[in-house]
């Protein structure tokens, strides 16, 4: 084998290895892909070129990340902070649906951030080429750490600045706990009795409430039934009653309209006379109630009443006294 052939074979081997490697490397990306745009407020550490996975299977890559800064997107009406351009293999397009979840995760604990897809409900339509969806923001660990750091720093300052006060507080708390412990140990029997009494009282209260509840429930239910019945009757009668009232009112109005001024004056005079008569009657009644006069004495004075009653009883037994005086 000549030198040229040996050299050529070695070059071909190297080119073959390199070509195969490039084919394997680029093979996944050479297939047809379609675009999906995913909006995030914070996409974490995902970078252009990051893998797009369903489960652990790579189905595409992040083509680019664009800063929108909450500008209004007229197509969606949303104001995304970040819009991620994702290229997904067309062969999996029919498995990714409209309600698919796009979320940022990592390949391993310390691995690279990637975009992962939960494909969604198979009964929903598939996600079209060029669709714009909302992604699930990853947890802001940096923010959590910052807040935790601030909290710890505040607690540290608090402890450092109030060391003596906190020491006093702790010693007081310890003393109080110790005393409480002693008190409990000292009055253990009494506390047991108190607890038993409380338990008994609670039990009796429960029984009482149960009884009252049954009783009251029966009464309340009866009252409610009666009320319902009454309301039903009222409801039945209210319409004809109202009709009668309206008719009576209309007739009264007609009658009043039919009266002339002279008749109205006569009525007023009659009413005034009646008013005076009522006033006199009230005066007479008051006179009687006060026990004045014969009638008043007869009505209000029990002694006269008893005398009359005695006289009548005597006359019943001795009717001759009507004709003969002893």
């Amino acid at each position, binding site marked *: 084998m000549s030198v040229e052939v*040996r050299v050529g074979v*070695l070059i071909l081997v*190297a080119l073959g290895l390199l070509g195969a490697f490039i084919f394997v490397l*680029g093979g996944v990306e050479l297939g047809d892909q379609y675009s999906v745009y995913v909006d995030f407020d914070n996409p974490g550490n995902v970078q252009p070129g990051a893998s797009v996975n369903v489960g652990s299977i790579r189905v595409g890559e992040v083509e680019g990340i664009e800063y929108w800064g909450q500008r209004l997107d007229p197509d969606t009406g949303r104001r995304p902070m970040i819009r991620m351009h994702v290229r997904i293999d067309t062969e999996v397009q029919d498995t990714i649906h409209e309600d698919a979840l796009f979320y940022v995760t990592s390949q391993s604990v*310390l691995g*690279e951030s990637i975009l992962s897809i939960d494909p969604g409900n198979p009964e929903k339509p598939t996600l079209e080429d060029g669709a714009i969806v909302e992604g699930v923001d990853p947890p802001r660990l940096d923010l959590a750490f910052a807040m935790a750091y601030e909290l710890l720093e505040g607690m540290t300052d608090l402890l450092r600045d109030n060391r003596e006060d906190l020491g006093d507080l702790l010693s007081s708390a310890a003393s109080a706990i110790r005393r409480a412990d002693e008190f409990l140990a000292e009055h253990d029997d009494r506390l047991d009795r108190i607890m038993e009494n409380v338990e008994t009282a609670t039990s009796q209260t429960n029984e009482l409430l149960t009884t009252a509840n049954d009783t009251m429930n029966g009464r309340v239910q009866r009252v409610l039934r009666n009320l319902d019945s009454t309301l039903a009757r009222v409801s039945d009668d209210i319409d004809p009653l109202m009709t009668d009232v309206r008719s009576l009112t209309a007739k009264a109005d007609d009658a009043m309209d039919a009266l002339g001024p002279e008749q109205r004056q006569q009525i007023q005079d009659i009413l005034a006379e009646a008013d005076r008569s009522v006033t006199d009657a009230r005066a007479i009644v008051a006179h009687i109630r006060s026990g004045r006069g014969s009638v008043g004495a007869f009505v209000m004075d029990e002694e006269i009443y008893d005398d009359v009653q005695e006289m009548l009883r005597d006359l019943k037994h001795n009717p001759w006294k009507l004709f003969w005086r002893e």
Partner: protein
Amino acid sequence: MAARTKDPSIIDAAKNVVTDARDVFRVFARTLYYLFRGKREKGEVARQMFAIGNESLFFMCITMAFIGAIITFQTGLQSRKLLPDFSLMGATYLKLLVRDLAASVGALPLATRVGAGIAAEIGSMVVTDQVDALRMCAADPIDYLVVPRFIACVVMGTVILIIGGFVAYGSGLLVANLAFDVTPSTFNNLMYLNLGDVALGFFKCLTYGAAIAVVSAQRGLATFGGSEGVGWATTEAVVGSSFAIIVLNLIISTFGYFLVPSVGPG
């Protein structure tokens, strides 16, 4: 070509570096010129390719196999201390290998073998006045001596480094499987790689091949002082080539960081 003292002071050493750099660029420029305009002896390029490529294959495969095994083993050990998760070991190792290690680490042993050979061969011709004879025949030694080695070194250096990279990957896979129970399917993870990484690594291979040839040829042409001078030229060729590889790695990696998009770590 500038002559130099054997025990230079710091200032002389700095002057020598500047002078060598200027001479290297001069040789490189003339090499590029004769690459397109010169006439070469028939079969010389193939012979140089065989010497640089085929005859270095075994040495490079063994070296890269050990390098790959060592890197993987040490990576696994450190990972196990930090976090016992080897799922991304292959992906990270491949990323480093393709983007940098296969070319940069592989070019160093290649420089020791090929660079030393080129410097010794040309240096011997210089001290035996064969180069002066070429000049007397109106033949530029760059055209006749350097350009064939330059072509051979660029082509076969790249070939050898590619093959060495695959060998390093295979040995790393083996070590990961034997030492850390990482399955080949887990190790064979191209997640962090893209074509930009391959292009960057390929460009480094070409550049290092050219650098080894130019630096070694320059040191060979600058040889003086008989056989002892040839020895010094050989040593300086290896040192200069290695230094050139490291400096070029820094420059290319810096540009590559900004120009070639990277996925994942690194």
